[in-house]
């Protein structure tokens, strides 16, 4: 380890430092002042996010196990911003509900360890590092899902999550070992050169893909999603739906476009089918959901299906559009989850019918929600439209017009259920609407950040061009 490797790993090292500081703080702080640790953690993570924006150079460490470059670094920053928003939106919940139970600091520690796992996962240069990152990012989340131990539904979700996650990572590990058997190496750089399409590698790929598909909640590995989102604390659900999903989609893309490129003629077809199944099942199941968390769960399954439209291309355009879409999706989905969380924290209500007449009592929250839903549905001029249009353009550039056509059919289906929420908030009237309330400062900050993201990301075009430039790294 020399200074340069420190700089290359500074995101990981800094996050680890925060983690340790929190542990120390937890030990030494006065029992009555535990609340201040929430501010402390937020403050440190805010600094961490800002420091992340300093540029980094392409580096490979530990004999190629760990690597980083501008695109990976950019994506880590996107994850940081997303986690920061999640934390801001959950801060009040932690302060009011969790700190009295003495479970405040651990929440941050577990969340940060999971994020650390994601860093390692997307920076991995070989399958071993990748697998360690995958596990590190999943296991803490299982504890977080079951965080509200007093609620039965939360514990149930935790069990469900850990069981499915275990199965998925087992499948993934088996797939990796088969790939190792076929190629004799776990290093990405070596595998690419010797990988050929045989039955063994095919089986290895499918099993490996299943593990990641679980994290992205692609059909048919999506069964855990709705139950877990419903049972988990809302902050954790939004973390799962955005950060965890985004990171997994990103590493899947890198692996498909680089290491597994020789198998492209196979994974193209698999992704085609999975994309269709994910979009249709996600959308059709979302139609009938009453609970907002379940609703957002199925909507996020459907959105994952759209991401696959960019993955199928295997080109620079595909990389750029996928990264851009995930970035937009982070802000959009967090806005929707943020509103749900604000309302649930204040009133405990989570059903769509409870939102009836919301605009007349809480206009600002309703507008944020509408913006988020329009962005999810892909309506201009908000960012979601550009994200989707570009993804579809990527798929069309390879001639997948039928896939794009079926995707736009799905967009129309999804518009229906997004409009149902808009209808509840704006059109329906209620005898018993959610009364007016003012959210606390952290929550408002979290929502404002998301709104800014939704409005600016789409119209500010240099950002996309910048991502496109970065994407050359994986498409040489």
């Amino acid at each position, binding site marked *: 380890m020399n200074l340069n490797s420190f700089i290359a790993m500074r995101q990981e090292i800094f996050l680890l430092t925060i983690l340790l500081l929190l542990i120390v703080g937890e030990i030494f702080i006065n029992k009555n002042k535990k609340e201040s640790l929430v501010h402390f953690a937020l403050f440190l993570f805010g600094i961490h996010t800002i420091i992340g924006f300093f540029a980094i150079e392409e580096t490979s460490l530990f004999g190629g196990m760990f690597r980083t470059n501008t695109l990976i670094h950019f994506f880590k920053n996107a994850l940081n911003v997303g986690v920061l928003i999640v934390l801001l939106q959950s801060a009040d919940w932690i302060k009011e509900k969790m700190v009295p139970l003495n479970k405040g600091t651990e929440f941050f520690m577990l969340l940060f360890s999971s994020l650390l796992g994601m860093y390692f996962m997307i920076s991995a240069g070989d399958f071993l590092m990748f697998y360690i990152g995958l596990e590190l990012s999943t296991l803490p989340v299982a504890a977080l899902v079951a965080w509200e131990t007093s609620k039965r539904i939360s514990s149930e979700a935790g069990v469900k999550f850990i069981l499915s996650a275990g199965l998925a990572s087992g499948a993934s590990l088996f797939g990796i070992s088969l790939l190792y058997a076929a190629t004799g190496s776990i290093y990405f750089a070596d595998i690419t050169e010797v990988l050929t399409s045989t039955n063994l590698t095919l089986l290895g790929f499918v099993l490996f893909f299943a593990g990641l598909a679980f994290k992205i909640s692609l059909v048919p590995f999506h069964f855990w999603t709705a139950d877990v989102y419903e049972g988990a604390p809302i902050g954790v659900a939004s973390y799962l739906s955005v950060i965890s999903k985004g990171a997994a989609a990103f590493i899947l893309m890198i692996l498909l476009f680089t290491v597994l490129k020789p198998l492209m003629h196979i994974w193209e077809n698999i992704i085609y089918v999975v994309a269709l199944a994910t979009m249709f099942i996600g959308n059709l199941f979302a139609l009938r959901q009453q609970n907002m968390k379940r609703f957002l769960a199925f909507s996020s399954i459907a959105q994952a299906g759209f991401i696959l439209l960019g993955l199928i291309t295997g080109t620079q355009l595909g990389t750029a559009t996928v990264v851009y879409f995930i970035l937009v999706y982070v802000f959009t989905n967090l806005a929707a989850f943020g509103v749900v969380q604000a309302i649930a924290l204040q009133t405990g209500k989570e059903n769509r019918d409870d939102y009836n007449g919301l605009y007349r009592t809480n206009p600002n929250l309703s507008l944020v929600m509408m913006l988020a839903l329009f962005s999810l549905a892909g309506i201009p*001029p908000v960012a979601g439209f550009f994200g989707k249009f570009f993804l579809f353009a990527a798929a069309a550039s390879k001639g997948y017009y039928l896939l794009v056509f079926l995707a736009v059919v799905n967009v129309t289906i999804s518009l229906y259920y997004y409009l149902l929420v808009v209808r509840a908030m704006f059109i329906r009237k209620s005898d018993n609407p959610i009364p007016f309330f003012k959210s606390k400062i952290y929550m408002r900050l979290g929502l404002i950040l998301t709104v800014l993201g939704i409005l600016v990301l789409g119209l500010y075009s240099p950002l996309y061009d910048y991502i496109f430039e970065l994407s050359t790294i994986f498409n040489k």
Partner: protein
Amino acid sequence: MDILSLFVIVPVLTVIALVFSKGLKQARIISMIGSFIQLGMAINLLFAYFKERAVDKSVMLFTQDYIWFENFNVHYAIGVDGISVALLLLTAIVVLAGVFISWRTDDLPKEFFVSLLVLATGVYGFFISIDLFTMFVFYEIAVIPMYLLIGIWGSGPKEYSAMKLTLMLMGASAVLMVGVLGIYFNSNADGGALTFNILEIAKVHIPFEAQKLFFPLTFVGFAVLGALFPFHTWSPDGHASAPTAVSMLHAGVLMKLGGYGVFRIAMFLLPLGAIEWSWFFIILSAIGVIYGAFGALKQTDLKYINAYSSVSHLGMVLFALLMLNKTAWNGAILQSLSHGFMTALFFALIGMIYGRTHTRDITKLGGLLKVMPFISVIYVIAGLASLGLPGFSGFVAEMNIFVGAFQHEEMFYRVATVISVSAIVVTAVYILRVLGIMLMGEVKNEEYLHLPKATWFEITGILLLLIPMLGMGVAPLWLSDMTMESLQPFIQGVLNHL
């Protein structure tokens, strides 16, 4: 700042001002001022256009081009020709009239005017764009406020109608998106760079197979907004549930986006596809013309009558465009303009009648000519224009359409034309039926004898629409010349392939 971008900037500024306004009075004054400025700009643009056209013979005038997304070669590119200028003027007039007609919106007035002006922004932006991507963005911006406008301020089964309308139109625009992508990825067929610019793409020889595939997608994507049979069903329900100003704006302006997009994008960029598919869509649009007319004949709700009449009239626009010749196309443009003023006027009058009598059922109305003479007389005038009486705007348009359509020598086109022409007779029947039942005869309800007179803002709104409509009928030539001249490059692009 260039003269065209103002058409987007001014409504956006108006919306921003509205956000900070309080109460109905401020909201309506701000919207009125904003719309007045728009109208002034549209008139100014008309004269500027004439001046510029005398010296500049290029297809589009006042063009501006800013790079937006460099990697996709997306530009914010704008420019106008005579047709867009005329349609911009129509939009400005209808929006202003709509603001006047909505003078007394009690429920959430600020939000109402914001939605109305967002819709207007989309329409203005659509008409000035010459970049496919920008155009598509504005197209969707124009459609989505309809959901809130109908849902919140509508009447009757408004939730159902709003959802139906939005889903059908957004579904169509989703299909259109595939068409747009198809055109984009074939725009390098001659070896150039991929581009969204309409004028650039028109020079490219897109392969026949691609045109055959993408023309129906693009055509249907636009034509659903122009009430193409069998995708017209959103229109009667939507219009019947919408508040008055929204019906005006929607039937008067928004539905014109369909026909405009068809000739500017679908046919101009994919001429071979248009030739290949025209027979199929001619059948559909001819059915629409007849079906709409008979539908209007059977309805008793005034708004439904007008909505079906719109289906029939706009079916004629699509029908004429599909005939692929210059006279018919010119008729289509004139019909769009004439129908825009006429139908907006109709919906304004219906709103006024409904506001006083609280019914739109013609069987319950009667003798209105005696109780509300002003409104009734205007209704008669609008009715006569609608059935295409010489001297009114509808006559010029329909004359052009059918003369143009009959120029085809093949039997198929002639039969289709004859069938469509017969709709004119049905139109006369349903118009005169309404006039007879509703305006003539005895007053059926004693209460109607004491109805309030038309207020100043209502009269202003109506005159705004009536004057251009009459003007078009009396002196159609200058308008016709302007559109005809601008049509030339577009129709030529198609004719070269026939």
